[in-house]
């Protein structure tokens, strides 16, 4: 039965090529947009190397402070705060502190070299699985002893040293000299935790002021032994915040926040005023809602085309009805036809999306970002295609199944 439906569906699609083209154009276009959006979100928030332990890693990305005179601010936490309230959390396997990337300019032989610099500690390299092209990471000891060592990414090595190996050589960053200990593969600009061009030990920060700062530009990453330990660590963090002692209670009397994934943190920033509750579900709902609103116009368009196409087949429906096919059978048949059509369009859309993503990768708009269609994105795309196919097929199928056999046979339709 299903095989017959599929056969009929293919025949129908090939008979009226223009309609098939119109439908496929709409479907493919819609799915290109949705797939590119999904690939983008997946690239920013999905589990990608070097974040291979993402399932048991959470971060402290933002805190919210409040006080009687300064009002409320949402900022990156400072080193002083993280060192005292996050690094001491019991139950974690490793905890790393690092700065948000910051652009610095260096001149080499008169040429301007821009690089994003991140200060971090030894644990950073153990939580994240960077692929080293040469050398290795700096260690907690380098950090403590303020050794002037640096890890570069491949592109920065090329900018400074051409194609030659860099380990052991000296590089000048922002007027200071560092010895290169390792070179890693480029990591995308859009990954908040690992991204940088140059990684330096926190100990080499010139100014010691950061050591006590409550606000700043630091973040923390926490690796738990098992994913199931995460709720307990989150609870520990909450009670640590409850014990918060302010250096200046008139200025800041309360700090709130939570440990979360980057996506969860974004949802907290958007929907949870005090950053205390993760609202990932709500954010996901909003994104799906947005996708739904976007598909409204293509859906109406596809329904229009399908209705026109189906009316053309009125006599076929009349015959089937006259021979006793129930409305439900007919609805089923046309749904299958529509889903086949959308799947073909979906595949087309997928191929086009790959081209679009290749174009974005090539544009250099986001440094080192390689947007890709992985199985996860393919799955999202497939689900969206099916949803779209059913959504746009139900109404025309229902319209058709309600045709009166006599009218249908005559082909006289309103």
């Amino acid at each position, binding site marked *: 039965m299903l095989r017959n439906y599929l056969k009929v569906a293919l025949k129908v699609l090939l008979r009226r090529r*223009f*309609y098939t*083209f*119109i439908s496929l*154009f*709409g479907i493919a*276009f819609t799915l290109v*947009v949705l797939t590119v959006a999904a690939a983008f979100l997946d690239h920013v928030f999905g589990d990608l190397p070097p974040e291979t332990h993402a399932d048991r890693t959470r971060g402290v990305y933002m805190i919210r402070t409040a006080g*009687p*005179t*300064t009002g409320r601010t949402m*900022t990156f936490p*400072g080193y002083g705060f993280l060192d005292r309230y996050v690094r001491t959390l019991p139950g974690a396997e490793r905890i790393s502190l690092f*700065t*948000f990337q*910051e*652009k*610095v*300019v260096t*001149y080499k032989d*008169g040429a*301007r070299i821009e690089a994003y610099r991140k200060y971090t500690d030894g644990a950073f390299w153990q939580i994240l699985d960077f692929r080293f092209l040469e050398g290795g990471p700096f260690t907690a000891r380098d950090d403590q002893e303020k050794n002037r060592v640096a890890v570069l990414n491949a592109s920065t090595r090329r900018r400074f040293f051409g194609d030659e190996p860099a380990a052991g050589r000296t590089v000048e960053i*922002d*007027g200071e000299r560092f010895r290169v200990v390792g070179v890693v593969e480029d990591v995308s600009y859009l990954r908040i935790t690992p991204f940088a061009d140059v990684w330096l030990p926190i100990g080499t920060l*010139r*100014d010691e*002021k*950061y050591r006590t*700062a*409550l*606000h*700043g*530009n*630091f973040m923390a990453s926490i690796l738990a032994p098992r994913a199931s330990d995460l709720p307990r660590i989150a609870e520990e963090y909450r009670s640590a915040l409850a014990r918060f002692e302010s250096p200046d209670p008139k*200025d800041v009397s309360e700090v709130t926040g939570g440990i979360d994934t980057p996506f969860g943190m974004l949802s907290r920033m958007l929907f949870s005023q005090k950053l205390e509750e993760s609202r990932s579900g709500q954010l996901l709902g909003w994104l799906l809602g947005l996708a739904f609103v976007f598909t*409204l*116009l*293509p859906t*109406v*368009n*596809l*329904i*229009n*085309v399908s*209705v*026109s*196409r189906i*009316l*053309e087949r009125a006599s076929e429906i009349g015959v089937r009805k006259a021979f006793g096919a129930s409305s439900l059978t007919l609805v089923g048949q046309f749904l299958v036809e529509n889903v086949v059509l959308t799947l073909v369009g979906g595949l087309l859309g997928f191929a086009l999306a790959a081209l679009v993503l290749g174009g974005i990768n090539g544009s250099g*708009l986001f440094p080192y970002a390689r947007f890709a269609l992985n199985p996860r994105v393919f799955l999202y795309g497939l689900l969206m295609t099916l949803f779209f196919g059913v959504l746009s097929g139900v109404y025309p199928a229902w319209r058709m199944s309600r045709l009166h056999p006599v009218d249908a046979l005559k082909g006289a*339709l*309103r």
Partner: protein
Amino acid sequence: MIRQLVKLCWNRKRSQALVAVEVFFSFLVVFAVMTVVVYNLDNYRRPLGFDYKDVLNVNLGSLSDIVAEHDGRSSSTAREESRRLLREVQELDAVEGAAGMAVPAFDLTGMTDEVEHGGRRFESYNDEVTDDFAQVMRIRVTQGRWFEAADDALPYTPVLVNERLKHDLFGSEDPLGQNIAPKPDEHALGRNGGQAPEFRVVGVFTDFREDGELQGPEPYFLKRSRVAGAGASPYYNLVVRVRPGTPASFEERLLERLRAVSPGHTFQVDPLTKMRRSMMTLKLVPLLAAALVAGFMLVMVALGMVGVLWQSVARRRREIGLRRALGATGRGVSLQVLGELLVVATAGLLVGVALAVQFPLLGVVGWVSTGVYATAIALAALVIYGLTVVAALYPSWLATQVQPAEALHYE
């Protein structure tokens, strides 16, 4: 003629309704895109109010340093340091002039303060600048005067407001000599150590649209940077105007000089032209992506309409043939096809426009003016009608090809 067309469409309202719904959604999409496009074009043609060519921005100190300053630690040494750096830069031979400011131009950050006068009270962007700023950035003062060294002795902070702020706060009143700082409440007093700030207007300048040409018209004012005494703060950025024709290698020399003066600092030197370009990219890329998606959507809608019309022409061959047999011209028939589509499109458009006019009426997006909305609605309607006519071209030509004889020997 039109009444007949409406009647024809009304008789087949079930199948036409879907087309109308499609037109309605398309209109909303085009309206949204047009609003953004018109808004940005409208902004683009306004004067920027300053000259960014041959100007370098020097950022002094990283974010963590700035926040640490706010925590109140060692802010006096930072102030001394920033003054010293400014003096050093001013002495370089390629430098025409240099000034200090708090928040740089072409940057996503901004400072706001509340302003108040005659019962009107709102937040306004502002910046804190030194006396040379007007000369370096070529700010045009249209009324009153710019800051001068003698202002050090004033018991209040002198400010200059832009034309927009003058208009929004004072209307036709004379702004000179007025205090625009809001009446202090206890909360604000506590924050400022018991002393109410006083911002007194000494002049009016055309504008300083720090985010670039695409920024909307916004109220803005410039405070005079206090170099000493209570309330004085360091400046975090220097703007440096270099002599025309200065090579790019000067940036490196400037950076070396700064590092020599103050070794413990991170500096970032960027030409304003470069900062403007990245700001433009940042603002234009999402716009272009949205416009591209909307463009493809319109192609899709047009193709869909062609399909629907084609089908309807094919189904109504008998009716069309009969009209031809009774003496209707080909032109008349094709006009009917087009006319019917236009009637349906108008129905969808009317609903769309009714929804769109709510935006200016309710002031949903406050910073977009009614004029921009009106233009966007008109343009969107025009685009939709254009689309309709294009979509109807082929099917209406097809209708003219129907032979009268077909009507007679159909079936």
